[in-house]
């Protein structure tokens, strides 16, 4: 009951945001559906006339369908930038297959005798299509549109990763922030939308053939209308546009804190942290809130603005490990603590750069690094007990887990199994608590502000002191979750506000405070 209360409270507090996201979500779904129908129905008809092409066309549409959505969105960025265009295009591609296939099948399945009779009576090919084939195939085509709609409602959540908005903003924000209420505030309306549209279309489908024809006309009006809903909430004022990931937008030290500290506000666009560097370098946004050790800062020639008022708290990185594993295998902690303080900010940035720009594999980078420190040792034992090591989904974590893995292989009799790229903080943390993974790299700031329910005054007292923060987090984690923080690795990967070097130079931007106008 209490949870339900919290949920309603959240919806009430965020109702304008929720409405905006629902409208964006509906708009994304139907705009892409409209485009897909405009392409897929004629294409489906075309391949009934040229059957040799059918297998090829359906095959290609099928392959498009199997591309993981986040990968597809990633491919779109260099071509279409961020925001509406790539999102619509990706959704469009996903909607193609069910519509093409059902149009093709629907027309194929029209009784041959009916077609022969129509031809024998002297109907032209176009007349047969219009008067016989399409009306008879309509229920099947409709079913295809229905499938595509439901797929699109689902995939549209991912559009939040590339700044196209929609209910994914709550969902991914919630995952990043370990906030179940927020996840549900996005997921439940999204599920309701899917059920609602599916049932509405089913109702039309069941209401008989004649009604379907009328409904078809109604849809011709309704779909463009729904499509346009995406644009209803768009009311950007003048000012800086900033790409911000779902985690930063919602956390206590996040966007609100930054805006407060400096008295500024941006036109924010929600962007996946994996994609934001490219987006700012292309000029899709003016600023992003990225990670201070990210290799792409160098690769994309970005300038980090100074945080003269300390709006960003310290984020020292250390492995976190389940109590049970720590107790059973003290050698793991011993091996990883050899890394304590060995990775400085500049070293970490360099390692990230080698991965992001040099395209070296995390494995090679980790080995080179360990060899340079003289820490590298060959694998001690094969086929021992295996530890699962998780990571969040960004470069630094991929490299860190490789380093951890090589250390454990070299210094203990255990084997490792890497499970990198686990969505966000919440997914890693939940996996660790559930024993799905043995350890992953975490940051003190995240522990303090996201994973622990730290009272505001405590945060206030700790936030300027990295060591105190680390001690507090270590103690609280042990007490609350039985999870151990090992020694910090040395670098501070805090958030940082960054812009294109060229723009920063042109405008003389050095410090965040200069952004206030």
């Amino acid at each position, binding site marked *: 009951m209490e949870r339900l209360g919290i949920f309603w409270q959240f919806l009430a507090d965020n109702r304008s945001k929720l409405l905006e996201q629902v409208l964006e979500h509906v708009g994304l779904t139907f705009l892409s559906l409209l485009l897909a129908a405009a392409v897929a129905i004629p294409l489906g008809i075309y391949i009934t006339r040229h059957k040799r092409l059918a297998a090829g066309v359906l095959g290609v549409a099928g392959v498009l369908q199997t591309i993981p959505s986040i990968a597809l969105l990633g491919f779109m960025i260099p071509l279409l930038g961020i925001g509406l265009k790539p999102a619509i295009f990706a959704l469009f591609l996903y909607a193609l297959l069910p519509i093409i296939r059902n149009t093709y099948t629907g027309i194929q399945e029209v*009784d*041959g*005798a*009916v*077609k*022969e*009779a*129509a*031809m*024998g*009576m*002297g*109907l*032209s090919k176009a*007349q047969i299509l219009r*008067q*016989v084939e399409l*009306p*008879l195939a309509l229920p099947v085509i409709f079913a295809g549109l229905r499938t595509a709609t439901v797929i699109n409602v689902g995939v549209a959540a991912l559009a939040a990763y590339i700044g196209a908005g929609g209910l994914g903003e709550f969902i991914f924000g919630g995952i990043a922030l370990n906030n179940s209420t927020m996840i549900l505030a996005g997921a439940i309306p999204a599920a309701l939308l899917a059920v609602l549209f599916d049932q509405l279309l089913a109702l039309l489908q069941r209401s008989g*053939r004649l009604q379907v024809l009328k409904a078809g006309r109604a849809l011709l009006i309704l779909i463009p209308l729904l499509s346009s809903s995406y644009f209803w909430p768009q009311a950007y004022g003048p000012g800086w546009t900033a790409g911000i990931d779902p985690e930063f937008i919602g956390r206590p030290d996040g966007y609100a804190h930054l805006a407060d500290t400096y008295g500024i506000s941006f036109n924010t666009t929600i962007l996946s942290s994996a994609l934001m560097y490219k987006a700012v370098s292309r000029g899709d946004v003016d600023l992003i809130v990225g990670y201070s050790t990210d290799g792409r800062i160098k690769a994309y020639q970005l300038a980090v603005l100074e945080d003269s008022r300390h709006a960003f708290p310290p984020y020292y990185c250390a492995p976190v490990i389940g109590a049970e594993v720590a107790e059973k295998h003290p050698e793991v902690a011993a091996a990883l603590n050899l890394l304590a303080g060995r990775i400085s900010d500049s070293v970490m940035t360099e390692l990230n750069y080698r991965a992001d720009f040099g395209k070296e594999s995390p494995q090679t980078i980790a080995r080179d690094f360990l060899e340079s420190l003289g820490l590298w040792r060959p694998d001690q034992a094969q086929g021992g007990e295996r530890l699962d090591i998780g990571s969040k989904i960004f470069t630094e974590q991929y490299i860190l887990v490789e380093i951890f893995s090589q250390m454990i292989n070299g210094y203990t009799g255990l084997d490792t199994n890497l499970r990198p790229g686990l969505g966000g903080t919440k997914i890693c943390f939940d996996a660790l608590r559930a024993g799905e993974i043995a350890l992953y790299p975490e940051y003190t700031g995240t522990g303090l502000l996201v994973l622990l329910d730290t009272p505001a005054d405590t945060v206030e007292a700790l936030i300027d002191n990295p060591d105190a923060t680390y001690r507090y987090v270590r103690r609280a984690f042990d007490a609350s979750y039985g999870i151990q923080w090992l020694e910090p690795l040395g670098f501070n990967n805090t958030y940082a506000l960054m812009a294109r070097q060229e723009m920063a130079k042109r405008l003389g931007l050095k410090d965040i405070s200069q952004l206030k106008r």
Partner: protein
Amino acid sequence: MQIPVIEAKGLARRYGSFTAVSDVSFRVEEGQTLILIGPSGCGKTTTLKMANRLITPSAGEVFVEGRNVRELPETVLRRRMGYVIQSIGLFPHYTVSQNIAVVPRLLNWPRARIRERVGALLEQLGLPPGQYADKYPHQLSGGQQQRVGIARALAAEPPIVLMDEPFGALDPLARQQIRRDFREIEELRSKTVIMVTHDIEEAFEMGSLICLLDKGAVQQLGRPEELLLSPANDFVQAFLAEKAAQLEFRAHSLADVFAQLEQGDGPQGPALEMPPDTPVLQALYLLARQGGQGAYGRTLHYGQWRWFTLEGLFGLFRQMLKRWND
């Protein structure tokens, strides 16, 4: 000489190295019915479909009212030829009256004329418009559907009607009934019809001309009695023999074999009485079904009693079979 309504000259159709039809020629005059008949795969349907160019001939020409059909657009040609097929092919999303109105609508007839025409056709085909006009095809029986199919073919008053085994899909009872009705449709009598069938009974009943095909070639083209009296070759004879035995059993009644039945009152015991116009095959069937209860059957013809046993009648039946097969 009268110009034939439809004339084919040297029609042929090849698919790669396979010849489906070769050198088929015929002339059909106004009001005549040409039957295309033969075993399956003989090319009868292919020939029919070359008439309205659903299949393009590899060689040969078709003339409709003296005009080469190649000069006409296909759709114009087809709208002047009614087309009825075995699988009927009514538009399932159209009502009965919409189905019948398809071609008149294509020809832009005025609404009132279409409505009048549809009503008249339904009336003629024994489907009262009040009851059937707004029904959908799936609400009709097979026989009713085919009537609508025929009405649809006749709707735009085409001079020619093509029929591809129009009654093939119906059960024997419905089939006889619809054929009887069919003959009574005044309008159809004046039409020039080309009809494909594999049923010799149907061919003899309905055809003014019969074109017997085998392996794509015409075996004999002539009036039905010409085929019976002077078969052109062994194939024609064999084809007719095989089917005609059936024809005869069904056609011959007790009256026809009266002379060969026993005279008098017959043996003691219950007799199964039948009218003299009972077909022989049916008499056999009825007597066999009666079993021990009726030891014999009898019939009264012009005041004379004749009687027969199951064995006796069966012997007669076998003689008839032999005569045809010799």
